[in-house]
């Protein structure tokens, strides 16, 4: 489904600020894989997501989606088959437009946009059905401007918009980090449900270790631009936070303390 080969990204090369954000990353995701990504601040998680989505071009290496090399495909074309939810709840929706208009824009993601009405009666019904699954009562507020919604509601809507066209790949970058604990839990649960329902191939970055353990069938840990741990299947199910911290110490030969902020 997704195939990353030898990806390297260096920022500010040959300056004192040089930063190797990604170093020789190889990563393959099979169809329906749900991978949680953890790692300290600056480990390169967001950069990895940006390379996949096309908003960051790798210095070397290639990105393949569905056996197709998309390394040079611009971001907007790639997003026909990649859904994304950002950390900032403001980032995933257009605030001055209504809920149904936002959904209509997401609906047009994998089609060619035309000079036909974006919101039709039939589509309204469809949107209402999808909104019902969020259990937030948004189905009765189709004509409300999205700017009026709370952060949690907006993030739930963003999640729906990123997923209901069933993209080949779903990228979630700390999409619950800006929410209060109860909202974060709501979005976490929704994420699990939606990914399962559409059987989406998913990469989810999180600083919440418990969340990383609870969700998904595979977990990778990143540090200093490298994937240092990749655990899946039964071993992932048996994983605990203590074991993870222990693993990190074994690999890196150093303590992973709270300052490294791997814990949410």
């Amino acid at each position, binding site marked *: 489904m997704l195939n990353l080969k030898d990806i390297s990204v260096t920022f500010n090369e040959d300056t004192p600020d040089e930063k190797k954000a990604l170093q020789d990353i190889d990563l393959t995701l099979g169809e329906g894989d749900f991978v949680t990504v953890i790692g300290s601040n600056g480990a390169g998680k967001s950069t990895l997501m940006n390379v996949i989505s096309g908003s960051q071009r790798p210095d070397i290496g290639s990105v393949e989606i569905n056996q197709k090399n998309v390394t040079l495909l611009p971001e907007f074309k790639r997003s026909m088959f990649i859904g994304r939810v950002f950390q900032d709840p403001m*980032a995933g929706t*257009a605030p001055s437009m209504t809920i149904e*208009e936002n959904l*209509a*824009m997401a609906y*047009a993601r994998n089609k060619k946009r035309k000079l*036909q009405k*974006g*919101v039709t009666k039939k589509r309204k019904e469809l949107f209402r059905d999808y909104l019902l699954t969020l259990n937030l009562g948004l189905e009765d507020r189709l004509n409300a401007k999205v700017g009026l919604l709370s952060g949690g509601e907006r993030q739930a809507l963003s999640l729906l918009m990123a997923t209901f066209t069933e993209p080949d790949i779903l990228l979630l970058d700390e999409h619950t980090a800006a929410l209060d604990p109860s909202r974060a839990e709501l979005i976490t649960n929704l994420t699990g449900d939606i990914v399962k329902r559409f059987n989406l191939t998913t990469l989810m970055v999180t600083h919440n270790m418990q969340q990383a353990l609870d969700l998904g069938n595979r977990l990778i840990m990143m540090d200093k631009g490298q994937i240092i741990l990749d655990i899946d299947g039964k071993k992932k199910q048996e994983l605990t936070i203590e074991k993870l911290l222990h693993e990190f110490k074994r690999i890196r030969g150093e303590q992973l303390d709270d300052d490294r902020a791997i814990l949410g």
Partner: protein
Amino acid sequence: MFFSMFGAVESGIIFAIMALGVYLSFRILDFPDLTVDGSFVTGAAVAAVCIVNGVSPVIGTLLAAIAGFFAGNITGILNTKGKINPLLSGILMMTALYSINLRIMGGQPNIPLLNESTVFNMFDSFWGQLGIDEALNGLLGSWGVAPLPSTWIVLFATIVIIIFVKLLIDYFLTTEIGLALRATGDNEKMIRSLSANTDSLKIIGLGISNGLVALSGALIAQNDGFVDLKSGIGMIVIGLASVIIGEALFGKKTIVRTTLAVIGGAIIYRIVVTLALRADFLDTGDMKLISAILVVVALVAPKFISTMKDQRRRQRKRTELNNKVKGAS
């Protein structure tokens, strides 16, 4: 009085087309596009040259709009592909257009259109048969209004055109492409993550915006009976004034409402300017100053009024609370 107001409404409606163009760039695309000062004259010049050379005024007017569309495209390309900042892209294009417009006008800074066929007089004989002029002027005359307008066709024609343009914009902004265009101005990162090519959308959006501006220029030239190379100076301020006054007076809850508000704003702007110019100490040279002051007032007044309201509300609350405390003790 009636006569000058009549003229103000007529030209206000034609300028409203330009204001809708400015609304598209400034509000919908969130792109402060200064191309307007140039593209307005481009439209006027293309239409005038066509008409003087015997081309049908309708075709000349359409060609004018197309020329404006291309001018807007280029501003969009400068910004998106050349990565030049929006304001500078517009200024560069506006400056370039000054020379281009002079070329279009064959090196003359002024082209008269008197005694030429225009979109407004080409249907004169048909219009005359309807007898609308006589009926309306007769009615007004019986109320003692004088002098009377020589024809009502311009007013009727511009009303038809502005309604058509408004409905077209309203519809366009609800289409799939229109929604993506609005999102480009609202949250560009988001609509790109939904597979929209924001570069193309900006280029098209600025094209439509300047197409409308040029259409307005073409109609103004035909109504005024001449084109002047310098007639575009300050056009952007007039457009902005119309948008801001309209939004402040008539609201901006929905797109349908806002486009209507912008049209209203353009007409009111014309009326206010016409009234101001009647004052003895002001003459036509003061037009630009009046425009600038109007924009400032329209920007400052709503905020000032709402602060005042808020203060009064709080004052009232405080008195209520005081009274309650007094009553309790």
